[in-house]
């Protein structure tokens, strides 16, 4: 195995890339939001330049007052508050996604920067790695 494995092993030390995690799904109903959050937390251990953006139903991941008792699944919404402790401080929401759902920043559990679609596109274009779910 290999030349390609060797390729992976060389270099990489000390490289800082711009990672963006694009959260597009509601927090419950599918597992994408929960497992996506796990990737973001792990990335912090690699000292990368991490941004998290929330678009479409993904903005619901940050909503206040989540109660999952009725659906008998884990409520992980408080974890978003812990992101700051992992030095993940660049949190963005898309304005149009918020507006379409009647949400304002007061409805969210963390401080975010709201971007319009063009600003969001520019931010995405600046990234080295975009992982979306």
């Amino acid at each position, binding site marked *: 195995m290999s030349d390609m494995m060797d390729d992976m092993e060389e270099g990489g030390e000390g490289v800082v890339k711009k990672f963006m995690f694009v959260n597009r799904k509601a927090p419950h109903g599918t597992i994408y939001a929960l497992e996506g959050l*796990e*990737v973001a937390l*792990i*990335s912090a251990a690699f000292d990368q330049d991490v941004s998290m953006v929330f678009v479409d139903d993904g903005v619901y991941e940050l909503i206040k007052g989540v109660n999952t008792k009725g659906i008998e699944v884990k409520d992980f919404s408080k974890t978003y508050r812990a992101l700051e402790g992992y030095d993940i401080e660049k949190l963005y929401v898309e304005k149009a996604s918020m507006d379409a759902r009647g949400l304002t920043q007061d409805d969210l559990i963390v401080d975010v920067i709201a971007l319009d679609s063009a600003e969001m596109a520019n931010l995405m274009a600046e990234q080295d790695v975009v992982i979306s779910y």
Partner: protein
Amino acid sequence: MKIGIMVSEGPYSHQASDTAYLFARNAIEKGHSVPRVFFYHDGVNNSTKLTQPPQDDRHVVNRWSKLAEDHGVDLVVCVAAGMRRGITDEILAPGFRISGLGQLVETGIQCDRLVTFGD
């Protein structure tokens, strides 16, 4: 170019794994390298040797194993996502290994591109 791949959907119920495989195979044929494929979310279900599709259908799992054997592609299954779904070392098909999410981040850091396949 060094291309890393993430697969986030299970086999047969979704095209993501097929498309990722075809992309990887063709990229390698064209002279690029695909050092690693990372299986996450339901994508971890692509790794089990218990998979037995009908004989007239493609074998998604064996295809990945062959790609690993022929080209040294590192097939990594996320341990946390795998454990949730009952994927353990005992049922891994050849060429697959279980490791942590850090391997996905590392792939993003070390490859020129990280291409993701899923919903």
